[in-house]
């Protein structure tokens, strides 16, 4: 990681949703930067506007204020500089694993020979060599999410932007896949922005953790994770790991309980 070279700059993002009854501010003046090769995790309670922020940074949704720039170039809409990985099941069921990974390369009009080489390289990277001809339905959920990650990486984005990529998986798969992503990120020195609601995941994978407030989503604090790199799965057992988890939970607890109270207040009550 080279902390001096800033790759992603997110400045003053504001996003409001206007309904007939009210205007809800989902994201309120959020700013941060991510350096070359760094992993920044964004964590916050449900309803803090994490997914909205993901969509605005990825260019799928237009923010009301603020800007997103990669290496000094301001983004306007989806851009090859930012590669998105979604939390939902997002592989194309009618394409084979290899053709799924080739999808963005096809769109860009890459020659077949180069497509095959790149697909091969990235499938090997995510540990799916030998599954080229399988269809997603024949794979496990964790393998399918690796296909989605390979597909996004194949486009060689400057910034990898992931929205709770392990949310749909069971606990053990989540831990294993988290470790896999960590290894890949370290191998590629991939600048990464990870959105998550799991504190352990945030500490395990990232160099800094940005804690968001409950609605409207603002930056509450940024915690430096000074765990050694390269990291392996063993880090989870260390004393420092536990201290970071506790520290972040301390920041997060008030916000999470605000969210919970708000959700309970909106439930219909029996008389």
């Amino acid at each position, binding site marked *: 990681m080279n902390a001096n070279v800033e790759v992603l700059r997110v400045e003053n993002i504001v996003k409001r949703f206007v309904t007939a009854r009210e205007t809800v501010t989902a994201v309120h003046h959020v700013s941060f930067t991510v350096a070359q090769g760094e992993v920044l995790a964004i964590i916050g309670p449900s309803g803090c506007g994490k997914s909205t922020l993901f969509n605005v940074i990825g*260019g799928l949704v237009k923010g009301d204020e603020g800007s997103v720039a990669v290496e000094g170039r301001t983004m306007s809409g*989806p851009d*090859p500089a930012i590669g*998105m990985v979604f939390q939902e099941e997002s592989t*194309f069921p*009618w394409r084979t694993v290899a053709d799924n990974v080739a999808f963005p390369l096809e769109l860009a009009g890459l020659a077949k020979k180069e497509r095959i080489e790149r697909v091969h390289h990235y499938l090997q990277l995510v540990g799916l060599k030998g599954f080229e001809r399988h*269809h997603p339905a024949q794979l496990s959920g964790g393998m399918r999410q690796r296909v989605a990650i390979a597909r996004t990486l194949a486009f060689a984005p400057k910034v990898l932007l992931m929205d709770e990529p392990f949310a749909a998986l069971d606990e053990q798969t989540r831990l294993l896949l988290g470790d896999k992503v960590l290894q890949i990120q370290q191998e590629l020195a991939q600048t990464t922005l990870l959105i998550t609601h799991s504190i352990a995941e945030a500490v395990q994978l990232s160099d800094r953790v940005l804690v968001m407030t409950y609605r409207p989503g603002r930056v509450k604090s940024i915690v430096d994770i000074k765990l050694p790199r390269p990291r392996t799965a063993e880090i989870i057992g260390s004393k420092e790991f536990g201290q970071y988890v506790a520290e972040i939970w301390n920041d997060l607890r008030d916000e999470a309980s605000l969210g919970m109270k708000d959700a309970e207040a909106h439930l219909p009550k029996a008389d």
Partner: protein
Amino acid sequence: MKLNLLRLAILGSILLFWEAVAASGLLFRDVVPSLLKIASALGHLGVNADFYHNLSATAGEVGISLAIGGSIGVVAGLLLGGSRLLGKSFEPYIHYLGPTPKIIFFPVMIMWFGIGPGSKIAMGAISCFFPVALITAAGMRQIDQVLIRVGRSFRASTWQMVTKIYFPAMRHPMLNGLRLGFGVSVIGVLLAETKLSNRGLGFLVMQSYSQFDMPGMYALLLVVFALAILVNAIISRLGGLAVSEI
């Protein structure tokens, strides 16, 4: 295996029952002709050049009407499914016009396209437009939204979205639409031919009927059944290839 035997037995007993009714003489002569007579009428059809001429006329009309009505239906369905406003404003009309018997449009079609193949093709095309449009629109709304977001995140053009995401994601409903569309366009064309025409299978059926050539009429009906089953099987096979990945 057992099931196949059972199916054969059902078919066999229907044929036996038919033959028994024919032999009993209870019904007016030839209303239920003997299977042998139908078989021989089929044989005659097989060597009759006129039959093939009419068969190809009908097949051509069905094919063209399916191509016209089906492609307009797909485009209309994509527009209706893709735009909330268009869908909400147009769909009630299509929804309520869909089940009305299209034969009521036939006089209008004769005025517009003449009594030749034009009006038959128009009938078939109108018939198949409705189910194809409705099924395509419904299929479009069922596409997993995250797949569309994936396409957008990779900056797919509109054309790439349609050909690489919408169409493959909708392959099952669209094949179903094609199958339904084929069925109703056959009905539209044959019905129009029986009303007013001078060629086609529908015309031949009515000709046999007016000459009280019952074996010939049944033979023609069998041909129509067989063709419909064959085409349906081919379309299902195409669908089968598409689903093999699941």
